[in-house]
């Protein structure tokens, strides 16, 4: 009969298999050796981190998936993902992990690796540039407001030069000098 001839579409729950040849088996070691990355392999994918994340519902890759992707070696996907930059750094995932995986800290590690490859959202790169150029994120403009409150118009003790000098010599300086002139 005609209807049995029709090939049904594959069920939507199936996903494309991961291309094993594109996995980077060193990625997990790279992250484990970074600040607070040691507990990475303790993850048993319970997804408590995802339950704790206030914005995971708008993430394509949820926090527990990102951790799994790191363990699998999906370096390119993780470091190019928008999610690592959307992280609020609220530490709710990390705080609730029953395996003591420092999820938020690991996302900071991922951002540092992405930054090293110049994969930084423009507005975040602009903040880095601002730090190198001005030594701070906010500068006093309304000094009369300070005087109204009986405060010194200029912030006592402020010296931006050493910060500018330090950051000029680190990754921030390199990122900020590239392609912006």
């Amino acid at each position, binding site marked *: 009969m005609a209807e049995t001839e029709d090939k049904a579409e594959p069920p939507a729950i199936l996903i494309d298999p991961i291309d094993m040849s594109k996995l980077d088996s060193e990625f997990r070691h790279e992250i484990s050796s970074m600040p607070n990355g040691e507990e990475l392999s303790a993850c048993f994918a319970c997804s408590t981190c995802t339950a704790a994340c206030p914005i995971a519902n708008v993430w394509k890759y949820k926090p527990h998936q990102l951790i799994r992707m790191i363990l699998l070696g999906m370096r390119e996907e993780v470091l190019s993902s928008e999610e690592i930059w959307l992280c609020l750094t609220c530490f709710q995932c990390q*705080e609730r992990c029953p395996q003591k995986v420092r999820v938020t800290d690991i996302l900071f590690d991922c951002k540092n690796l992405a930054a090293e490859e110049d994969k*930084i959202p423009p*507005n975040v790169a602009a903040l880095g540039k601002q*730090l190198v150029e001005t030594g701070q994120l906010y500068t006093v403009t309304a000094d009369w407001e300070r005087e109204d409150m009986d405060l010194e118009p200029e912030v006592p*003790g402020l010296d931006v030069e050493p910060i500018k000098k*330090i*950051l000029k010599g680190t990754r*921030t300086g390199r990122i900020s000098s590239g392609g912006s002139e």
Partner: protein
Amino acid sequence: MPTYNLYMGCSVPANYPNYEAAMTRVANAFGIQLDYLEGVACCGSPNLRAIDHFGWLVVNARTLAIADKTGNDTITPCNGCFGSLKDVYHILVHDADSREAVNKELKKEGLEFKGLSKPRHFVEVLYTDVGMEEIKKKITTPLDGVGISIHYGCHILRPADVTEFKPEILDELLRVTGATVVEYPLWKQCCGATVLPVNEALGIRLARDKLKSMKEAGAEFATVVCPACANQLDLQQLDLKKSYGEDYNLPILFLPQILGLAMGLSEEEVGLSMNRVPAGPILSHLRG
């Protein structure tokens, strides 16, 4: 008179002189001397940590190394600065390799991180070093019956093993003024400030959800201890009329402003007119 270093960071002095002044006046009332730390600037915020972990370590270790020379602990009124300083302090105390690498950089300026000066949030110093008994003695105009919700802010609470801060500190500092602490479901949730550079609409949504949660729980005020949280909950509130068509009219006060008012400071002395959502009507009702 106990003396502390005062590390202001960049946001409070530029955006919230009312917070700076209220903190200074409350400190004076308790005989706390705050000396502005010499030769320091911005902590870099989580944005710097995201793109340049080592640069972030050096910048904050430098601040702590300058503080080390004074022999006094270092107070900040900003959760962002507190988070950076506490995290860097924690890393450098526990990781000899990082400490060595950072000190190599600091040596160029003749500085060394020793970990002698502990970074602390102003409200924790009030709670621990002044103590609730002494604070209670100074309450002259109690805010009896006013319902206040607390937005703690992420970087003062978490990660708890690093920040070593307990939520009860702010609860007790509010209750001592005679105010009622209004609990609300989203008390742990982020204000959304950090995500603004990457997704502004998402950041605004988070601020709106916080305000809604506090308002629905019956808060008349809310208190914050961080300039970034204040941007989100106070300043951003005005825009919510446009973006969400919602008007929360929930005054957001820094904790030293509330404490100061209860200690008899005037509205001018705590800079209440600089808060964007006016708090005056509620206070005059209370006192009328």
